[in-house]
């Protein structure tokens, strides 16, 4: 099946199988910031934004993205560097596998709720699992980024 997606503001056309997931379509075409972690819709490492909303690309059928806008970390360079540096400063970036997805999720949070409370940050990001840290340094970095320390 043929699909048209706007990825990071660029119109792209792909041929996909009916059961192909967006994570595969994107990775095949060079968007390598997307990770496949659990492959069970639970870890959040495959997060992308669909029309600005975070979704799990490992579980989203590519055909359903037809006609929609997809944002990956590659499309958010500036914000990614800002937030990424803050997380690194707090020691929250160890193996780095989950960081791209956490950054994208936080960007979506910022656009939905610019000044969230600690509880709101945790609630919004609790679908992004990290196996290296205890989430405390990430939270500190996110709070600095959002200006809600």
């Amino acid at each position, binding site marked *: 099946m043929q699909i048209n997606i706007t990825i990071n503001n660029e119109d792209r056309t792909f041929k996909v199988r*009916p059961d192909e997931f967006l994570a595969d379509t994107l990775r095949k075409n060079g968007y390598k910031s997307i990770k496949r972690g659990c492959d*069970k819709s*639970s870890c959040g490492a495959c997060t992308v934004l669909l029309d600005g909303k975070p979704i799990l690309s490992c*579980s*989203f*059928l590519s*055909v359903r993205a037809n006609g929609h806008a997809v944002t990956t970390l590659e499309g958010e360079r500036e914000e990614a560097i800002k937030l990424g540096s803050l997380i690194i400063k707090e020691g929250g970036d160890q193996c780095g596998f989950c960081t791209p997805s956490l950054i994208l999720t936080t960007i979506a949070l910022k656009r939905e709720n610019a000044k969230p409370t600690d509880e709101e940050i945790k*609630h919004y990001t609790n679908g992004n699992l990290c196996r290296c840290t205890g989430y405390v340094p990430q939270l500190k970095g996110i709070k600095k980024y959002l200006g809600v320390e």
Partner: protein
Amino acid sequence: MFTIRELLQPDSTREAYQLLQTEAGARIIAGGLFLRLSDRLTIDKAIDISGLGLDRIEEMEDHFQIGAMVTLRDMETDKALNSYFSGVLGKSVSGILGVQFRNMASIGAPVAARYGFSDPITALLALDTSVELEDAGTVSLETYLSDRSIKKDLLKYILIKRDNSKAAWQVLRNSETDFALINAAVSRSGNEVKITVGARPKCAELATGAMEALASSEWNDSDLEKAADLAAEELSFGTNRLASAEYRKDMCRVLVLRALKEVRDAD
């Protein structure tokens, strides 16, 4: 992981329903998240219901009409819906995995499939809720959950009567984002009360004995305790990897009591 041989994209609910009846190996696909969990599932013909306009929450004259493809995240954040029933519907889904997941999972699927572990079914059953199916028409949620002869139908809408009832939500999980090992909801309008308990691990049911006892009581602490005990006695509980039947029964008492106090003290 699943394999889909062919993806059918009908234009109307009628067409989707007919494909489900006539095509061998056909299966409705909503968010696809639960289907995806199964090992080596092959779906010959997946009926995609995402293009049928079933993705809106609408305020009708005396009820909310919730399309089957409305996401759990929409249920969580919809202002109008959550201005009713003490926001119980939003609360019931807010603990299901992360925001990414809730942006994809549909509200229709767990209801249609009558998932025992479901959080939102428990909350919906505590309200005046019906489901509208393509073939069977509109039936109360209570009837739908118990009448297994309704199958191979397409759930189109969840209908919730709007009233001024107060409601409360309680759930117990071993850790956040895990499945509930038990959940409970209570709604109250005047002296009329509904108490539901789900993930027992069987699907939500009404605790009718406890509801009747409360209808003619003063709602003081000891009345509520008695009702919570009654609920734990009249409902059945089972054991699975999350919790034992005994633990569920004990926790049922605790959650129901908390929910009852919450709706009483909300006035």
